[in-house]
């Protein structure tokens, strides 16, 4: 066992949420030799033959090996341009991640739509979008897009924020989002357990 591994293990045993953001261009792995590892793991996916989904699942597999947690693992993935983010945590709770480039601009019509519901919220439009994307991944809302056409009404979602943490109330349930800026991206991590968001560590 190398020193890095021991340090990583020590840190992870004292925390709960680990995430990694990486450029897929610099993350080329032997596809054939690792595909079976993924297919027989909890990270198997119908989209595994797509390079972006393959790399994020492989990354998640490596993180869970180092975490030494093989049961009760929660995880989430986000992909943006050439980058992928992988979030893995021990514990059986809801958690999700969304990444967006820092310089991503939101169109005026989308901003108008958001301001109809969240005009008083002290978060940027991109941060609110990230929260909504996370809520979709968690499954508390089905989609931001209405299946009948247009965008969904967001009247039932209440968002407030303090110290870069957002508090979301929806259907009498509370969710919490934390924002992290890293490598030209901002990452939004959302969970129904606020304690876990206090112990996020980043790994390469």
């Amino acid at each position, binding site marked *: 066992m190398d020193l890095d591994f021991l340090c990583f293990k020590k840190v992870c045993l004292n925390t709960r949420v680990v995430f990694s953001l990486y450029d897929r261009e610099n993350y080329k792995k032997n596809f054939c030799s690792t595909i079976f590892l993924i297919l027989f793991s909890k990270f198997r996916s119908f989209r595994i033959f797509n390079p*972006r989904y393959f790399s994020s699942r492989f990354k998640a597999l490596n993180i869970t090996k180092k975490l030494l947690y093989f049961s009760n693992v929660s995880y989430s993935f986000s992909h943006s341009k050439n980058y992928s983010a992988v979030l893995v945590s021990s514990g059986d709770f809801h958690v999700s991640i969304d990444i967006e480039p820092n310089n991503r601009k939101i*169109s005026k*019509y*989308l901003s108008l739509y958001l301001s109809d519901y969240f005009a008083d919220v002290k978060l940027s439009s991109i941060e609110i*979008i990230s929260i909504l994307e996370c809520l979709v991944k968690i499954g508390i809302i089905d989609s931001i*897009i209405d*299946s*009948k056409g*247009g*965008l969904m009404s967001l009247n039932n979602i209440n968002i407030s924020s303090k110290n870069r943490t957002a508090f979301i109330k929806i259907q009498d349930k509370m969710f919490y989002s934390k924002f992290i800026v890293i490598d030209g991206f901002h990452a939004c991590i959302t969970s129904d357990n606020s304690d876990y968001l206090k112990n996020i560590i980043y790994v390469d």
Partner: protein
Amino acid sequence: MDIEFKTLVAETFEMNIDDVEDNFALDPEGNWDSIAHLSIISGIDHIYNVQIRGDDLVGCRNISDIYLLIKKNGS
């Protein structure tokens, strides 16, 4: 393709309106992500009062396909 639609495309994909061509490709692995979907749907709703379905947008390969959807759903 009218100027309002080209303006919406330019704003959504952060490009100059003069560079918006009818066959501008939508790449699900690149520019055609969830925020682009939301921008296009909200813009079309606001400009044309037409509600586009997400499933229909996913099938679009270029911006002409989206424009046809507007015409189809608006008529």
